[in-house]
């Protein structure tokens, strides 16, 4: 009796199983299997929801990047033709005459003082004519889905609300969008400044983060003994990886923008781009902030790559009389470098998409000039997307969608490179 009481589960269950044959196994078996199938379906649905979310996200962006627009001209370009030559084919001098005739005196004077009209190239002049004389305005835009499915209704709405406007299909992502600077009118705005800003910032981020990150990884993997300070460093890196990116922005604002302003604004180096306005809110500050942000990620990735190098390689190096550094430089690093680079690219693509810290560091809201060095003001692609999204007009949403497409393509290229490298690397090891 007492034995059974002490182990009620095992012996009791076994006894019953033995005697009642397989009744217990069969107990409500169809019901249990049904429950299993239902839940399996539910798990699958959850998975599909995840995939659906990604699909919807991309659909939404593509949907907004293309579509019909209603364009209204201040002056119909057809009326600007000289002797039957359409305005696009006019010569430079004809365009100058046109500008002097049609554009207000004040604007012409300002343009002249920037660079005399006669000395400008034909493309530049044509751009001025389009902007100042023809002045196309997108009065309404439709999404791709609407454009494809409700063409007739759109046509009717245009005739009703904007009788002077003409409908055209517009791809918001186009060559001009990529090559034009920022502008306050949506049909002329582009992401050139933002792309260049992103590239400059990322370049500085890589220049700073890569050597320090790899150095730290080498230190932790090859040199650090298991003592108090090194354990602190390792724990600290892991914790830094979880700090919200906006906190790094505040660090950048207080240290790089404010405290180190003489350095980051370029005053110390004498390379001041625009001393009145930049005051520390420069590409250099942004790049340094992002470098600190991705360091933990980069270090952890590099550590893994270095750890994967077989110990025998090091022993062989030492056996041949190489010093520690010679072994690391000639044997460990060459073998770890593909892994390190893959990790670096992944970290860099993270930095490329970061927005919040750069807003805090002080990205410029509106600049039309290309950045010309680490000390100039900056904007980046994600910042541009944020600003366009925040505007109420629908046309800026289209621009934001187009800029997102550009950003995603850039990131995809980066990540594809990383994956290709990873595959090549793993093949070599195998």
């Amino acid at each position, binding site marked *: 009796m007492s034995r059974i009481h002490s182990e009620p589960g095992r012996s009791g269950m076994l006894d019953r199983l033995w005697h009642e044959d397989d009744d217990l196994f069969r107990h409500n078996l169809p019901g249990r299997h049904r429950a299993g199938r239902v*839940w399996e379906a539910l*798990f699958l649905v959850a998975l599909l929801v995840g995939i659906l979310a990604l699909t919807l996200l991309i659909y939404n962006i593509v949907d907004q990047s293309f579509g019909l627009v209603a364009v209204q001209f201040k002056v119909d370009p057809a009326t600007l033709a000289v002797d039957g030559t359409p305005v696009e084919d006019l010569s430079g001098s004809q365009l100058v005459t046109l500008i002097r005739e049609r554009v207000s005196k004040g604007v012409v004077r300002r343009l002249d003082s920037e660079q005399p009209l006669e000395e400008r190239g034909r493309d530049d002049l044509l751009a001025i004519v389009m902007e100042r004389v023809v002045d196309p305005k997108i009065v309404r835009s439709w999404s791709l889905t609407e454009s494809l499915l409700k063409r007739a209704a759109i046509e009717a709405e245009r005739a009703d609300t904007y009788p002077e406007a003409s409908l055209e299909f517009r791809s918001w992502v186009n060559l001009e969008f990529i090559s034009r600077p920022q502008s306050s009118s949506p049909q002329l705005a582009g992401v050139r400044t933002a792309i260049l800003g992103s590239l400059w910032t990322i370049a500085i981020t890589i220049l700073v983060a890569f050597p320090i990150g790899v150095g730290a990884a080498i230190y932790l993997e090859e040199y650090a003994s298991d003592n108090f300070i090194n354990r602190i460093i390792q724990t600290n890196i892991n914790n830094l990886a979880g700090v*919200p990116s906006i906190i790094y922005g505040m660090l950048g604002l207080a240290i790089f923008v404010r405290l180190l302003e003489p350095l980051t604004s370029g005053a110390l180096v004498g390379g001041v781009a625009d001393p009145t306005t930049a005051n520390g809110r420069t590409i250099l500050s942004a790049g340094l902030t992002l470098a600190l942000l991705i360091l933990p990620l980069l270090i952890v990735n590099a550590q893994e790559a270095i750890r994967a190098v077989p110990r025998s390689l090091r022993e062989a190096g030492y056996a041949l009389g190489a010093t520690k550094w010679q072994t690391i430089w000639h044997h460990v690093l060459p073998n770890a470098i593909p892994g390190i680079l893959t990790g670096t690219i992944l970290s860099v693509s993270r930095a490329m*998409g970061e927005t919040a810290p750069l807003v805090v560091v002080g990205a410029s809201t509106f600049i039309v000039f290309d950045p010309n060095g680490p000390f100039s003001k900056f904007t980046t692609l994600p910042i541009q997307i944020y600003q366009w999204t925040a505007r109420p007009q629908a046309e800026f949403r289209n621009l934001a969608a187009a800029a997102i497409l550009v950003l995603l393509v850039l990131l995809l290229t980066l990540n594809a490179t990383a994956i290709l490298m990873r595959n090549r690397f793993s093949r070599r090891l195998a």
Partner: protein
Amino acid sequence: MAIVSSAPRLSSHVVEVPLALRRRRRPGEALIQAFLFFCGAVSILTTFGIVYVLTRESLLFFAAPEVNLWEFFTGTSWIPAVGEFGILPLVNATLLTTTFAMLVALPLGLAVAIYLSEYASTAVRNVIKPVLEVLAGIPTVVYGYFALTFMTPILRTIFGRDVVDIYNTASAGLVMGILILPLVSSMSEDAFSAVPRSLREAAYALGATRLETAVRVVLPSALSGITAAVILAISRAVGETMIVAIAAGAGPAFTFNPFKAAETMTGHIVRISGGDLSYDSIDYDSIFAIGLVLFVMTLALNLISRAIMRRFREVYE
């Protein structure tokens, strides 16, 4: 035995190392090691920098005459213009978006993890995991755009335009859930795969179905790993910025209605610092005080998550 006995013989064969080689100082090597140590120390400096900056500016903020520490933590209105600095509206909005994010990410993430680790074939897993990685790699500003131009209109169609504001915490929270889903699912899946195969075999041998094995054996065994994942996800949601900055609304509001606009801590920091901010103003100092609260919250969550993870590892290794 043979190896041990041969050891002393070997040592007698060791060539006498020339003294010069053994004792040679190598300044180059020492210099390199010092530089590498400096690289490692940069991370410590970063931490010190963060703590120093946040504390210093926060102290300036709390020293200001219009700020009162008690009111800071208990006040329900944040209106810098009239000197009211109660952080509760911002914290409240952060908790609202985080709750919505977890309502999406927790069930979906867990279900995805169970499916991937217990049901899916290798082929399916090879397709799904990259998809999740892509979801995790999309910049958050894109999710913000998605929330504002897609999720909000849907919510407004379902619940009515008078009920749902253009900017609302529900939309931001739901989309944030999608952002965090990959984090929850991949960490939970790691936890599931750490459960020894023998436990599953034992359950099958006792006649359990696949579902019963997954839910009653694997899930409880992986519970601490999942808890760690969830806490880390919460920390991520609390610190998430761009989605709420774009879609949750501009302007602190103390409301529990998820369809109303309300500004989170991160959203407020971004909006204030995005404008023309002059140093040494109370606005400038106030965002650092909010930043300090944010930092402490996320750090605490991360530390708890890591502590649980460490304990969890000890169970099966």
